[in-house]
């Protein structure tokens, strides 16, 4: 299994300020695979993505790319952050942002060229953002910005695309739009996708695998294997229920400090 992994995390632990953010995390991602990084807020999803990007040093463990330790600078990983720090009046047009995906990390100046312009236009068409190619990126809605940043990340042709909560704060139709664009491009370009989300439901149709994060630990596998009350209760360290309603999955935790036995006892007390 390990030999054909594009990315492999081996026993990664991260300790920050005396707190364990990630504990002994191991999993692999194969080329072209769509993986959901699912878990509640504060579970360690963003830290995990930053470890893979090389932005967060690990306390122990290793991040391997094609079986080798991850190099300091690597163009084979694209990244879409959760938020952009741009004010609306910054005159960065959508096409400038996508163009920065090619060479924004380089020093010196570059002259415009027709080949580059066409490459940018093609990328914008691929993500369905060509209509606002000349708008300022700070003025776009959250869903529009996500599409632009996906184009920005994909134009350098990475083999792995990381997205940090791209569906947060989107309405349902934008959510579906982003998910279908990602699924289509992942298949067409053979890009592996690792996408973090606190709600797994919008990803159910496209997710090949799930990495469920809770309390700094992960459970990895097919959705049906992982999203089980026993597996998630062990992960959370407290009792959780998995409820399926109309094809949607809800993971519901019991109130803190209350496990099954106590809950029963309290109910009994009420009966008395």
């Amino acid at each position, binding site marked *: 299994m390990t030999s054909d992994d594009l990315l492999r995390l081996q026993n990664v632990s991260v300790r920050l300020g005396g707190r364990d953010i990630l504990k002994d995390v191991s999993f692999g991602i194969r080329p072209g695979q769509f993986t959901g990084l699912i878990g509640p807020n504060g579970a360690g999803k963003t830290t995990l993505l*930053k470890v893979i*990007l*090389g*932005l967060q040093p690990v306390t122990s463990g290793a991040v391997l790319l094609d079986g080798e330790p991850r190099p*300091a*600078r690597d*163009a084979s*990983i694209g*990244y879409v*952050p959760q938020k*952009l*720090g*741009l*004010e*609306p*009046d*910054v*005159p*960065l*047009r959508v096409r*400038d*942002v996508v163009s*920065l995906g090619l*060479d*924004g*990390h*380089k*020093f*010196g*100046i*570059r002259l415009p060229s027709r080949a580059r312009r066409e490459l940018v236009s093609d990328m914008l068409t691929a993500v*369905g953002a060509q*209509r*606002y190619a*000349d*708008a*300022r990126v700070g*003025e*776009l*809605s*959250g*869903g*529009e910005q996500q*599409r632009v940043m996906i184009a*920005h990340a994909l134009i350098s042709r990475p083999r792995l695309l990381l997205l940090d909560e791209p569906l947060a704060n*989107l*309405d*349902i*139709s*934008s959510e579906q*739009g982003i998910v279908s664009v990602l699924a289509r491009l992942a298949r067409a370009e053979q890009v592996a996708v690792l996408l973090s989300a606190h709600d797994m439901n919008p990803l159910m149709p496209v997710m090949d695998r799930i990495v469920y994060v809770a309390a700094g630990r992960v459970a990895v596998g097919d959705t049906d294997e992982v999203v089980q009350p026993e597996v998630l209760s062990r992960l959370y360290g407290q009792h959780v229920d998995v409820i399926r309603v109309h094809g949607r999955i809800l993971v519901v935790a019991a109130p803190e400090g209350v496990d099954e036995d106590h809950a029963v006892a309290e109910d009994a007390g009420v009966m008395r």
Partner: protein
Amino acid sequence: MHYLFEPGFFASGPVHVALAVGTVIAITSAVVGVFTVIRGQSFAGHSLADIATTGGSGAFLIGVNQFWGYLAFGAGAAAFMEMIGIQRRRGRDVATGVVLGAALGLAALFLYLGTQYSSTTGASFSILFGSIFVLTPSTVPALIVSALLALATVVALARVLLLTSLSPDIAAARGVPVRAVGAAYLMALAVSVALSAVIIGAVLSTALLIGPAATALRLAKSPLKAMITAAGLGVAAIWLGIVLAYDSFYWPPAGRGWPVSFFVVTLIVGGYLITYLRRDPRRVGAEQAGPEQSIDAERACSPV
């Protein structure tokens, strides 16, 4: 033409020097300023200007050309700000109230003592509000070289600065030394502030830095066009300011020209206000994107 250019304007040596140096400095300040506004570091620029005032006054007190005072204190303050990260929002209140207040207090002391010893009456005025007509010829090459170095630094870093302001995390993941780039930029900013201080004074130097850039950012559609527009606006303000200041020699009170910095700053502010007569460029951009075509507009039709 005769009414605009008073007799002798084109024959005056100080005017030639002022126009040449003013042009180079206006271009540098405007281009550096575009990134100051994009990076949200106008506050850092203003802090550097206040501290440069202390440097200029100190230099005057010990008899050194004030440009070196502006530069030394500005660069020192930039290094300090980079170390403690004060140019970001956090810590601004303390910096404004305590550090910058102390810097200007020291400037007041230095200027008072300096005028007591040297009895140079115009010195306080030229440090605070500039002195483009009385540039010391020996500093002119230093001014031009510093300006070109700051400009070259920012042009070389342009793409990296844009990527960093888009997302520092993306930049870092792609191998950009984000911290070092920020420090290099802050140094270029300190140099620009020192240069602007020479022309329009330490107190007003941020006007030349931020004003043309802020106006250009309202008008231009791309970063490159914003840099070119800002440079054009900066040069226009300096040239017109110099012409009007020269002309004002014949205005009341006769025989005493009005300060260049007054004209330059007034022109910059005027230019900025005029952009508000246009339609808001943000709205124009949004309309181009087409709200009815935008994906999120479907939100309105969505039942949830």
